[in-house]
C-alpha cells in the first residue's frame, strides 16, 4: 500500500532528536531540565504519532545513491509500535522522575533517552534497508551514553554492550547486502528475496541482527552486567522496551520480504528461538533475585518472538511486540525498585513485577504454542515442544521467587536439572568471555606475525644487504684481472638480454 507523501514520519524522528539536543545544551543550573525535556520530546512524538491515526504516510528522499534512499513509511501496522515507543519512554521518564532513579549526569542520560526514542521510531518506520540499518545501528551511541551514566564502573559494561550490538549488527549488514542483492532492491515493501542460497544467507544473517537486538541467546550476556551497572531506566527503556519493539518489527517483515529460506536457515533460526526459551527458562529457575529473573523472562520472551519469525506478519506480531515491550519495561523497573527496597516489600512494585512476569510468560507460552499449532515438520514440532518446556521452566522460576519472597528465603528451583543447571548458573550461556579470550589469542598471533615481518625488515634485510655488500667488497679487491672478468660478465648479461628479447 503506497502512502501519502508527508513529512510527518520525519518529524517523528526529529522531534525527540531535537529535544535531545536541547537537553544536552541546557545550562546545568536548570533544575530537572533533562526530565522536562524528555517529557516534552516524548509527548511531542506521541502527539505527532496520534495525528497520523488511520493514515498511511510516506517520506522518501534521495540519500546516498545506489538505491540507498531515506525512506520512512508510517502505516496502520507500524503506527501502534511508534506510539508504544513514545508511551513507554514517557512511562520510564515518569518512573525515573518519581523514584529519583535517574543518575547525576542526567543531562547526557536524558538526552540519550530521547535520541534512543528518535532512532527507534526511525527504525520502526524505515522502508529502506539502509535507512533501517542507519537508525538501528545509531542506537549504539545512546546505549553507550546511558550505561556510562551509571558511574565509573560502568565502562566495561558499556563496551560489552556496544561490542555485542556491534557483532550482531555488522552481521546484519552482510545479511542486508545478500538480501538486497538477491531482491535487486533495498526498498522493504518492494523486496521479494528469492529462496536461493544467497537469499537464505540473507535471511539468516538478518535474523541474527534481530536476535541480537532482542537480546536473545547468545546476545544476552551484557544484560546481566547492565542490570548491575547501568541506571534502571536504561534497562526499562532500551532492552526492556525499544529493542523488543524494533527487533520484533523487523522479524514481522520477514514473511513479506522473503519468498522463503532454505530449510537449513529456517532450522537454525528455530533452534535459536527454542534454545533461547529453554535456556532462559532454566536461568529463571535459579535467578535468585528480581533483576536476574526479569532478565531471564525477557530473554525467554525474546526467544518466543524469534520462534514466530517467519510465519506471521502484521497486526498479530505488532500486538505481541507491544505486550512484550510493556512487560519487559515494567519487569526491569519494578525489579529495580524491589531490589532497592531490599526486602522486596513494596506492594505496588511487587504487583507490577508479578503482573509483568505473567505477561512475559504468557508471550513465551503463546510463541511456543503457536509454533506447535503451525506444525511444519517433525523437527519444528520438537523444537516447539522444547520451547514449551522452557516456558514451563520460566513459570517455575516465577513461582520459585514468589515462594522465596513469602518465606523470606533465596529462590529455590522447583526441580533440579543437575549439571546442566550448574553449568548454566556458572556461565549464563554467555559467549562474551570466550569471544574475548579468542580475540586476545588472535591479537597475540597477529602481533607475533607483525613482529616477524618487522624483524624481516629490521634485521633480515639489513643483514642481507650487509652480506651482499661484503661480497661485492671482496669481489673488488683491486686486481685488474678481476675487473676485466666483471666487465665480461656484464657484457654477457647485456647480450643475453638482447638475444632473449
Amino acid at each position, binding site marked *: 500500500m503506497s502512502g501519502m507523501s508527508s513529512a510527518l514520519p520525519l518529524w517523528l524522528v526529529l522531534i525527540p532528536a531535537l529535544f535531545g539536543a536541547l537537553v544536552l545544551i541546557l545550562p546545568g543550573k536548570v533544575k530537572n531540565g533533562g526530565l522536562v525535556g524528555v517529557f516534552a520530546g516524548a509527548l511531542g512524538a506521541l502527539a505527532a504519532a496520534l495525528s497520523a491515526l488511520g493514515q498511511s504516510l510516506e517520506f522518501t*528522499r*534521495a*540519500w*546516498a*545513491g*545506489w538505491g*540507498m534512499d531515506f525512506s520512512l513509511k508510517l502505516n496502520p501496522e507500524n503506527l501502534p509500535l511508534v506510539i508504544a515507543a513514545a508511551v513507554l519512554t514517557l512511562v520510564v521518564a515518569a518512573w525515573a522522575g518519581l523514584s529519583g532513579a535517574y543518575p547525576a549526569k542526567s543531562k547526557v542520560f536524558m538526552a540519550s533517552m530521547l535520541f534512543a526514542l528518535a532512532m527507534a521510531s526511525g527504525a520502526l518506520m524505515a522502508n529502506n534497508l*539502509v535507512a533501517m*540499518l*542507519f*537508525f538501528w*545501528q*545509531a542506537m*549504539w*551511541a545512546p546505549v553507550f551514553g546511558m550505561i*556510562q551514566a551509571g558511574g*565509573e564502573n560502568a*565502562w*566495561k559494561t*558499556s*563496551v560489552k554492550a*556496544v*561490542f555485542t550490538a*556491534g*557483532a550482531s549488527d*555488522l*552481521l546484519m*549488514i*552482510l545479511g*542486508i*547486502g*545478500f538480501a*538486497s*542483492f538477491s531482491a535487486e532492491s533495498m526498498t522493504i515493501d518492494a523486496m521479494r528475496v528469492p529462496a536461493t542460497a*544467497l537469499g537464505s*544467507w540473507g535471511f539468516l544473517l538478518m535474523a541474527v541482527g534481530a536476535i541480537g537486538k532482542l537480546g536473545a541467546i547468545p546476545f544476552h550476556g551484557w544484560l546481566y552486567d547492565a542490570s548491575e551497572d547501568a541506571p534502571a531506566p536504561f534497562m526499562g527503556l532500551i532492552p526492556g522496551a525499544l529493542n523488543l519493539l524494533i527487533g520484533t518489527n523487523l522479524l514481522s517483515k520477514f514473511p513479506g520480504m522473503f519468498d522463503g529460506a532454505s530449510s537449513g536457515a529456517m532450522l537454525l533460526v528455530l533452534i535459536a528461538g527454542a534454545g533461547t526459551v529453554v535456556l532462559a527458562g532454566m536461568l529463571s529457575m535459579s535467578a535468585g533475585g528480581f533483576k536476574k529473573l526479569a532478565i531471564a523472562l525477557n530473554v525467554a520472551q525474546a526467544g518466543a518472538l524469534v520462534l514466530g519469525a517467519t510465519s506471521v506478519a502484521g497486526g498479530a506480531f505488532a500486538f505481541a511486540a507491544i505486550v512484550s515491550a510493556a512487560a519487559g519495561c515494567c519487569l526491569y523497573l519494578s525489579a529495580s525498585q524491589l531490589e532497592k527496597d531490599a526486602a522486596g516489600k513494596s506492594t505496588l512494585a511487587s504487583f507490577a513485577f508479578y503482573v509483568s512476569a505473567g505477561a512475559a510468560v504468557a508471550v513465551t507460552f503463546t510463541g511456543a504454542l503457536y509454533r506447535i499449532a503451525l506444525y511444519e515438520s517433525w523437527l519444528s514440532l520438537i523444537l516447539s515442544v522444547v520451547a514449551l518446556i522452557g516456558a514451563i521452566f520460566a513459570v517455575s522460576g516465577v513461582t520459585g521467587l514468589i515462594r522465596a519472597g513469602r518465606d523470606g528465603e533465596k529462590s529455590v528451583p522447583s526441580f533440579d536439572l543437575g549439571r546442566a543447571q550448574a553449568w548454566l548458573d556458572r556461565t549464563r550461556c554467555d559467549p562474551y568471555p570466550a569471544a574475548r579470550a579468542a*580475540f*586476545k589469542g*588472535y*591479537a*597475540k*598471533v*597477529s*602481533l607475533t*606475525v*607483525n613482529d616477524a*615481518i*618487522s624483524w*624481516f*625488515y*629490521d634485521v633480515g*634485510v639489513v643483514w642481507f644487504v650487509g652480506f651482499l655488500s661484503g661480497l661485492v667488497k671482496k669481489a673488488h679487491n683491486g686486481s685488474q684481472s678481476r675487473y676485466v672478468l666483471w666487465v665480461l660478465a656484464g657484457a654477457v648479461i647485456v647480450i643475453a638480454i638482447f638475444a632473449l628479447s
Partner: protein
Amino acid sequence: MTGPTLLLLVVFVPLVGACTLPLIGKISAKVRNALAFVFVAIPFGLLISMLPVALSGAPYSFDILLPLGMSFGFHADGLAVFMAMISSFLGLIIVVYSFGYLGHYDNQNEYYFYVVLFLGAMMGITLTTNLIFLYVFWEISALACWRLIGFFREKEYVRRANKAFLITGGGALVMLAGFLMIYFQHGTMDLLLLRGKEISNTAVLLILFGILSKSATLPLHSWLADAGVAPTPATALLHAAVLVKIGVYVYARLFVMTFHIDAFWNTAVPVIAAVSALASAGAAIGENDIKRIVAYSTVSQIGFIFLGLSIGGEAALAGGLMYILMHAISKAGLFLCAGIVEHSLHTKDIRKMGGLIKTMPWTAASFFLCAFSVMGVPPFGGFFSKDMVIHGAIEAGHPWIAAVFVLGAVMTVLYLMRAFYRVFLGASHVEHPAHEGRGTMEYSVVLLAALSIVSGLFIYYPASLVQAIVSQMAVIIK
C-alpha cells in the same frame, strides 16, 4: 586565470613556497607559519574553484610534449580534484594544529618546509599526466616523509625513518620498473594516451608492489606503525590524511581509470586487502601504544578502501572513494587527539592513562566521535562508505570477501572501544596532571570530529560528489 595557470599554481605554490619557508623562518617564525598556511590554503581554494569544471566533462588540462615520447602536464578531472582537495584541506588543519603542537620544539623551519613540500608533491601526484613525473613526485613525498619521521633526530627515530624510506622508496623503484615496462610496451608514459591500453600482469605486479608499500598494506606495512615516532601532526599527515592515500589514489588512477588489467586482480587485490585488514586489526587489539593502535587501524581501514576500488562495480568504487574522504577526516582526528594526549602525558602507553575524560573532555568527545566514524556507526560518514563497500563486494559476486571484511569491522569496534576506554574512561593511571591541548590543537580536533558527524548527517552532498566522479570514471572506463 586560465586553466593551465591554475593547475601550475596548485602544484608549484606549495612546492616553491616550501623552499622559501626556512629562509623566512630565520626572520620571523610568525610570518613563516602564516605563509605555510597560505601555501596550503591557495591550492585548496583553487581546487574548490576548479571543482565544477572538473565534473563538467571538460576539465582543465595541459600537456607539454618532451622528447622520447615523454610529456609534462596536469589534468584536473573529478578524481584528481577530489583527492587533491581532501589532501590540501587536511593539510591545512594539520598546519594549524602544528602551530600549537610544535610551539616549543627546535627545527621548525625544517618541519614546515617538509610538510608544505610534501603537500606540493601530493598535488603533483594527483594532477600529473605522466608516469615518470608521477614517480618523481612520489619520491619527493618519500623524502619529505623520511625527514618528518626522523624529525626528533634520536638514533632509534632515525632508524625508523630510514626503514620507512627504504620500504616506500624501494617500492617506488620496483614500481618504476613497472612504468618502464609499460613504456617499452606502448612507447609513451602519458596517462591520457595510455587510457584503455592493456598491460601485462608483470607490470601490474611491479606497480602494485609500489602502491602497497606506500599504502602500508601487508606485508609492506611495518614502517607505518614504526613511523609513530614522528611529531603528531606529521603522523596524522602521513598515516591518515595523505601519504597512505597516495597508494590508493594511484591504484584508482592507473588500474581503474587508465589501464585494462586482468580480471584476476579483481580477486587478488581484495584478498591481499582482506588479509591485511584482519592481521592489522588483530595487532591493533593487542597493542598498548596509542599511536601504534591508530596506525594499525589505518592499515586495516586501507584494506576497506582497496576492497572498494579493486573489486569492480560502481557502488563499491563509490564506497571506496567516499571512505578515502571519511577515513581521512576521522583518522586525522584520532591521530591529533592521540597527539594531544601524548603531549599532555608524555607517554603513548594506554596502560598509563585512564579517566582522562574528566580533565580532557573536548579531546575525549572528539576522539569518541572520530572513532565512531571509523567504526562505521551511523550517522557518521564512515557508516555509508563501509556499507557501500560491503554491498559492492556482494554485488561483485564476492560474498565471502565481504564476510571477512565484516569480521574486520567487528574488530574495528573492539580495538577502538578498547582504546577509548583505556585512555578516557575507567580508573586513572596517570602519573602527571593531564590538561587539554593548546587552542589551535583543540580547534583542529573539534573541527574534524564535527566534520565526521556532519559528513554523515548530510551524506547527500558528499555522496552526490562521489556519484558524479564515479559517473565520469565510468564513461572513461567504458
